[in-house]
C-alpha cells in the first residue's frame, strides 16, 4: 500500500474509532446545566441484577435507579400493616370507630385480615382460604413463567400475599396478570349488554377453548386462541350477522376484559389470531398467558388487588456495574501491556481492531431489543475478547516465525496469515454456531449469553482475519525498520 493511501486510511480509521468511542462512552452535561448528553453505554438497558434507570436519567437526588420492579398482590380482605396503621391513625378522633375497626381486623403475621370476609382462628385463616391462596400462588407463578422474562421472581409475601418481581420495565403486566376467575367470551355491542357465548351454563370453558399463545412475525405481535369444535361453532354462530352490523367480542377473565375484538365479519376459525398495532411483545405474551392459565391453570376463587409497586436498584448492588467496568479496564490494560511489550508498535493494529470490536458490541447490545447489559453478556463479551486477542497473537506469532527465517515483512505477513487463516476461521465458525444455536433454543438469560457470544465471535473472526491485517498494512507503510516496528527478529546463524 502506498504511503498516501495509508495516510488516508489511517486518518479515516482513527477518526472513525475516535467518533465511535465518543458516542459509545462519553457522557457530559450540556452548557444549559439542565440537559445531559448520554453515551450509548449509558443508554444501554441493564438487567435487574446490574440495573440503572433505563435511558440514563437520574432521580431527584442524582442517583441512578432501576434494576427491577415489584408489586404485591393482596387477596381481597387482606391488607398490609401499613394500610391498617394508616387507616387506624386516620380515626384517632373517633374512638368507637377505631375500636370497631380493630375488632373487624385480625392480625395474621404482618398482615391484617378482614374477619367479615375471611374466617381467622388463632391467628390463622381457615383451611379453605389457605387452599385457595395456594392455588393462586401456583396460578401467578405459571403466568410469570409463561412470559419467559429475564430475572422474574414470584414469592409468597408475609404468608398470604404474593410479591412479583420483573427485571425490565414490564410493569404493564402486573395488573392483568392479577386477574382471577373463569375465562369467558361475551359478544355484543358493549360490555354491559353483551351476552356470554361460552361457556354455556353447566359446561366448562375447556369444552370450548383449548388454550392461547402469543405469536410474533416480522415485528407484528398477536394473541392466538385455539378453540375446540364446539367453541368454533359457538363463535361462528354468534358472529353470523357481523357483516351487517359489527359488534365486539369480549374475552374476559373473571369480571375483567383480557382482550376485545371488533368483529365485522363472521369468525369461523379453529385458531383465532388477534392482532393490534398497540400490541408489544410483552403485552401480547401477557394477554396470552392470562387467557391460557385461566383456561388450563390452577383455579382460585380469591380476587387480588395490586399494591406497593416499586422500582429497585440492581440486585447485585448499586456499584455492581461500576466495578464491572473496572474489571474490563484492568483486563484491557493487561492485554495492551502484553501486546506493546511483545509486539511494540504493532500493538496499535490490535488496539484499533479491539476498539472497533468493543464499539460494535456496545452498539449491538444497545440496538438489539432483547439484549441487556448483564453479567452473562459481560462474560460472553470477555470470553470473545480473549478469543480475539489470542487470534491476533497467533497471527502475529506466525508472521514472526516466518520473518525469523529471513523472509521480507510483506512475505512473512502473507505466509503467516495463510498458515493460520483456516484454523482461525474454523474456530470462529464452530464457536459462533454453538452460540447462535444456543440462542435459538434457550430461554433468557442463557439465550442472551448465546446470542452475544455468537455475535462477538463473528466480530472477533472479522477482526482477527480482516481488520487486523488491514490495520497492520496501513500502520507499517511508514516505517523503514519494519522488524523493529513489530519487535520481530531474524534468526541468528553462525558462519561456518
Amino acid at each position, binding site marked *: 500500500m502506498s504511503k498516501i493511501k495509508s495516510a488516508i486510511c489511517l486518518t479515516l480509521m482513527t477518526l472513525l474509532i475516535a467518533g465511535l468511542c465518543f458516542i459509545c462512552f462519553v457522557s457530559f452535561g450540556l452548557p444549559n446545566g439542565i440537559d445531559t448528553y448520554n453515551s450509548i453505554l449509558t443508554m444501554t438497558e441493564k438487567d435487574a441484577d446490574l440495573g440503572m434507570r433505563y435511558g440514563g436519567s437520574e432521580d431527584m437526588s442524582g442517583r441512578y435507579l432501576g434494576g427491577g420492579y415489584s408489586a404485591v398482590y393482596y387477596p381481597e380482605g387482606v391488607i398490609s400493616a401499613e394500610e391498617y396503621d394508616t387507616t387506624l391513625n386516620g380515626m384517632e378522633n373517633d374512638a368507637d370507630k377505631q375500636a370497631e375497626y380493630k375488632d373487624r381486623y385480625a392480625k395474621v*403475621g404482618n398482615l391484617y385480615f378482614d374477619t367479615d370476609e375471611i374466617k381467622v382462628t388463632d391467628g390463622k385463616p381457615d383451611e379453605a382460604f389457605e387452599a385457595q391462596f395456594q392455588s393462586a400462588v401456583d396460578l401467578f407463578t405459571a403466568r410469570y413463567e409463561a412470559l419467559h422474562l429475564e430475572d422474574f421472581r*414470584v414469592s409468597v409475601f408475609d404468608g398470604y400475599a404474593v410479591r412479583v418481581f420483573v427485571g425490565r420495565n414490564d410493569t404493564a403486566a402486573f395488573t392483568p396478570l392479577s386477574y382471577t376467575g373463569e375465562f369467558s367470551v361475551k359478544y355484543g355491542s358493549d360490555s354491559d349488554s353483551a351476552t356470554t357465548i361460552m361457556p354455556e351454563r353447566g359446561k366448562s370453558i375447556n369444552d370450548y377453548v383449548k388454550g392461547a399463545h402469543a405469536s410474533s412475525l416480522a415485528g407484528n405481535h398477536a394473541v392466538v386462541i385455539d378453540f375446540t369444535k364446539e367453541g368454533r361453532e359457538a363463535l361462528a354462530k354468534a358472529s353470523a350477522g357481523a357483516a351487517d352490523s359489527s359488534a365486539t367480542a369480549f374475552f374476559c377473565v373473571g369480571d375483567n376484559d383480557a382482550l376485545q375484538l371488533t368483529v365485522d365479519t363472521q369468525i369461523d376459525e379453529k385458531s383465532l389470531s388477534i392482532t393490534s398495532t398497540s400490541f408489544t411483545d410483552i403485552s401480547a405474551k401477557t394477554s396470552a398467558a392470562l387467557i391460557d392459565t385461566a383456561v388450563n391453570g390452577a383455579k382460585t376463587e380469591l380476587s387480588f388487588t395490586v399494591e406497593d409497586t416499586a422500582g429497585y436498584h440492581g440486585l447485585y448492588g448499586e456499584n455492581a456495574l461500576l466495578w464491572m467496568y473496572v474489571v474490563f479496564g484492568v483486563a484491557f490494560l493487561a492485554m495492551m501491556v502484553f501486546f506493546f511489550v511483545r509486539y511494540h508498535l504493532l500493538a496499535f493494529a490490535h488496539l484499533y481492531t479491539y476498539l472497533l470490536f468493543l464499539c460494535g458490541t456496545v452498539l449491538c447490545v444497545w440496538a438489539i431489543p432483547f439484549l441487556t447489559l448483564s453479567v452473562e453478556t459481560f462474560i460472553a463479551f470477555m470470553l470473545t475478547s*480473549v478469543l480475539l486477542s489470542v487470534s491476533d497473537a497467533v497471527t502475529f506469532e506466525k508472521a514472526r516465525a516466518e520473518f525469523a527465517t529471513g523472509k521480507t515483512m510483506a512475505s512473512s505477513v502473507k505466509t503467516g496469515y495463510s498458515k493460520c487463516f483456516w484454523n482461525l476461521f474454523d474456530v470462529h465458525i464452530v464457536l459462533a454456531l454453538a452460540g447462535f444455536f444456543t440462542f435459538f433454543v434457550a430461554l433468557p438469560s442463557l439465550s442472551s449469553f448465546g446470542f452475544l457470544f455468537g455475535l462477538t465471535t463473528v466480530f472477533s473472526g472479522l477482526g482477527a482475519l480482516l481488520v487486523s491485517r488491514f490495520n497492520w498494512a496501513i500502520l507499517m507503510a511508514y516505517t523503514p525498520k519494519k522488524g523493529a516496528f513489530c519487535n520481530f527478529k531474524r534468526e541468528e546463524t553462525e558462519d561456518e
Partner: protein
Amino acid sequence: MNKLAPWKRLPIWLAISAVVIIAGIILMALLGFNNAAEKPENTKYEVEYNIVVINDEDMQNSIKASCEEVFKNNHLSVADFQTAQGTGETQDRNAFIYTFTGEVSAETQAKVKSEVDSKLAANTNLTDLADVYTTWHTESLTSAVDYVWRGAIAVGVVAALIYLGIRFGVGCALTGLAISLHDALFTLAVLAIARIPVYAAAPVWYAAAAALLSLAFWLIHCIKLRTLKKESQVPLDADTAVETGYAGAWKWVAVSAGLVAVVVLLTGLIATAGVRTMALPLLIAVVAAAYSNLLLGPAIHLHVRRAFDKLSRGNKLKYVGKEKKADK
C-alpha cells in the same frame, strides 16, 4: 505433561469423572443445588419514607444509622440492602429494605421495630417534617424458577460438532461430543457436591459455559491433529498421532484456560458480592474444560482413533482380498 502421557491413562480419568458425576447426580436428585444465593427464605425490614427524606441525604443517613445500630444490638447481620422507589401513585415514597437470610423470630421483629421506631421518634429533625413507617416482611420464593436449560447448549454443541466432523473428521467430533457432555455434567456435579451457593437458574448457565469452553479448547487439539496429518508423509497410527498432537496442543490449551480463568477471577474478585456469586463458580467450568482437554479428552480420542483406524484397515483388507481372487 507429555511425560505424564495422559492419553494412556483412560481408566484413571474415567474413574475420577465417574465418581464425581455419579455422586453429583445422586446429590442433585436428593438435595438439588444450593440456592442460598437466591435467599429463597428471607425476612425483610422495610423503612418507608416520603419526599422530605428523599430530598435530604442527612435524614437518610440518620435513618440508616439508627437501623444499623439496632440491628447490631440485636445481633442481626444484614445479608442485603436495597433502596426502592415507589412507582405510580406511590412515587413520592421511597424505602430502605434490609434483607436477612432465614427467619427472624417474632419477638426479635417486635423488639427491633419498637427500638427503631423509638430512635426515629426521638429524632425531632425527622419527625417534625418527615413521614417514616417501618415494618417487617417475610418472603418465600416459589419453587418455579424459569430454568433455562431446554437442551439449548446440547443443540448448539451438536451443531458445532457437525461442522467439526466435516472439517476435522468424525473421530474428532465424537471425542468433542463426549468431553462437552462430560464437562457440563462434571460442572453440575461439582456444584451439587461442594454445595456452592448459586442463583437458582445459574447451574445450567455454568454447564453451558463448560460445554462451550470444552469445545473451544478441543478445537486446538483438532487443529494440531489436522496440521500433523497434512505435514506427515505417511499416515500416522493412532498412538503417534495422539501423542504428537498432544505435545503441540497442551500448552495452547493450558494458556487459553489460564487466560479465561484470569478473566473470570478478575470479574469475581474486583466486582461486587452479587457479581462474585455469579462469576466465581464459573471457574469450575474452566477447570472442568481444562481437565477434560488436558487429561481425559486425549485418552478418549486415542481409543476413538484406534477404532477408526481398525475400521479403515478392515475395509482395505476386504478390497485387497477381492483383487487377489481376481488375479487367480
